């Protein structure tokens, strides 16, 4: 592979992105404006103002006065972000939830204290534990309640009952959400931001599809093919230039989000991993762009066809998806963008370490999807799309 050819092509692609107003808008201005608009609209601006979530609590714990559930509720009450309301029964709480008066209902089971006691009597022998579950009902219309509340409750539950023990040890009480959040002041935008990063990168599909269709239509792909440039060099240049664009997009979105008050959890390593995940995701979009260019006969039709890949990823795999029905959310698991959003949510919202198994799994899924989509795109375009 000759680096002079590859860098010449990368430079050409980057010049196109800068000099074409439509392309520049899609890859630079659109994500910037989107971030700014959402940041202003959903509360990031103005110094990270906290949002308070209304939680209904139904305490069925049957233990005596020194009940574990009282400590648990007390610790939850201490969280500024949560406003707890006590309910005598589940039906009344559910009624308020349906009417939107509260955003979540937490049902503490009868054997809660018993379960906690069983744990402390034999912390190393799970066979002697009395397992139980704290039931949560969430307002599915609230993107932020569904994202923010479960990890906070999980966090407080862990701290109350089990102290500072590692999150990975077995426990008798389950909520079902990963215990990764250090509960703190969280805005609505904090819940959305991780999904905005892949949201912006998804539009690379359209850019790549248009670019290849135009170059094909103008005879430029054929012309490049009369030079010693190999297909590998050409595709490498595409991969590099689109990765650069994805990184620039992420940096811009991040800078804009920071400007409007977004302060994600995580350190430099988390940020570096986020850049890596989004860069890998850009390869997936290059692949989908190539498939689109193969199907499209003109740049105009490429724009339309690209939405076959853009829409599902956008609606099911980014921050938009959390407001959808459970079945739609389940469908989101087939979208590569879902795993990018999930990883970035873990890093930036829950403050998960970069070695967290969930994040590693997300990165693995995104990587596999990207390699498959890119190879499929290269093969299909090479066979059917060049002419």
């Amino acid at each position, binding site marked *: 592979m*000759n680096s*002079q*050819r590859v*860098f*010449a*092509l990368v*430079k*050409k692609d980057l*010049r*196109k992105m800068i*000099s*074409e107003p439509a392309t520049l808008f899609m890859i630079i201005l659109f994500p910037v404006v989107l971030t700014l608009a959402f940041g202003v609209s959903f509360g990031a601006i103005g110094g990270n103002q906290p949002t308070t979530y209304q939680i209904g609590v139904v305490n069925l714990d049957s233990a005596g006065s020194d009940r574990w559930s009282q400590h648990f509720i007390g610790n939850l009450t201490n969280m500024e972000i949560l406003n707890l309301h006590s309910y005598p029964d589940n039906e009344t709480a559910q009624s308020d939830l349906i009417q939107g008066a509260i955003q979540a209902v937490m049902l503490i089971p009868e054997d809660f204290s018993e379960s906690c006691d069983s744990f402390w009597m034999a912390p190393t022998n799970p066979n002697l534990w009395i397992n139980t579950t704290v039931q949560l009902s969430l307002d599915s219309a609230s993107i932020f309640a569904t994202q923010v509340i479960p990890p906070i409750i999980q966090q407080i539950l862990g701290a109350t009952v089990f102290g500072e023990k590692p999150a990975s040890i077995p426990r008798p009480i389950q909520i079902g959400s990963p215990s990764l959040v250090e509960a703190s002041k969280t805005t609505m935008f904090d819940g959305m931001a991780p999904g905005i990063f892949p949201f912006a990168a998804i539009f690379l599909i359209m850019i790549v599809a248009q670019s290849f269709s135009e170059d094909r239509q*103008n*005879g*430029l792909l*054929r*012309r*490049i*093919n*009369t*030079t*010693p*440039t*190999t297909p590998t060099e050409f595709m490498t240049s595409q991969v590099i230039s689109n990765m650069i664009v994805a990184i620039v997009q992420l940096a811009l979105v991040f800078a804009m989000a920071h400007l409007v008050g977004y302060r994600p959890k995580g350190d430099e390593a988390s940020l570096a991993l986020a850049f890596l995940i989004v860069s890998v995701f850009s390869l997936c979009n290059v692949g989908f762009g190539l498939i689109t260019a193969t199907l499209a006969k003109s740049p105009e039709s490429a724009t339309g066809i690209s939405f076959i890949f853009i829409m599902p990823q956008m609606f099911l795999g980014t921050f938009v998806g959390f407001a959808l029905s459970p079945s739609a959310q389940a469908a989101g698991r087939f979208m590569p963008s879902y795993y990018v959003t999930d990883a970035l949510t873990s890093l930036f919202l829950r403050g998960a370490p970069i070695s967290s198994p969930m994040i590693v799994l997300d990165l693995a899924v995104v990587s596999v999807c990207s390699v498959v989509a890119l190879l499929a795109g290269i093969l299909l375009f090479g066979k059917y799309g060049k002419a």
Partner: protein
Amino acid sequence: MTSKRNPKETAKAIVISSLTKKFEDITAVDELDLKIDRGELFGLLGPNGAGKTTTINLLCGLLEPTSGSASVGGYDIQKEAHKVKELIGVCPQATAVFPYLTGRQNVELFANLHTMPREKLRKNTDDLLERLDLTADANRRVKSYSGGMRRRINLIMALVHDPEIAFLDEPTVAMDPQSRLAVWDFIKELKKANKTVILTTHYMEEAEELCDRVGIIDHGKLIALGSPKQLKRQFSAKNLEEVFIQLTGRRIREEL
């Protein structure tokens, strides 16, 4: 694996043997046999659809032949396509330029694709832009160029890397007379520099003015071959247009 030139063919820039290209039931190039010397300026003449561009595309490795073989610069066009592409410069019939790049950036891109050293790249680019009167507009984006300017940049992009063999597919089509004369002078200079030039055209006066030999092609077949003088003498014709009429019963440009 390194390619080796066939020593028997090194004297010839291009050797074509029974080359055929079919598109479904249409035979675009039909059993073509042709040899072109190194340093020769060869004209491939014929009306639109005669098979000129298909022949060039076959020789450049853009198309796979249905049958037959050919070598360019001693390299087999199928087995050693990469080596062929290192030797050639191709000016396509339809202007193929990146409109969002400047004229200079377009030229430098193709120089880089041929891995020219930086100094030579700058020198050749400046020299060619000057010779085709584009220096003043070199830093403007090509999308603001006139049709004639685009065609001149199209030509420079093909020749900036100083190729041994140049394929110029209708390089002066739709050019104003002044630009056409400038390109003719430029092509003559290539000849003086001992470059092999394969020029396709349906302008007979262009072929007469520039070419050492011409091959007249019609319906994919080579129907006449020789220098313009030889052909005119052979057919007792005043010009190549008359030669073509005698051979086919048609005017070369009536299909335009």
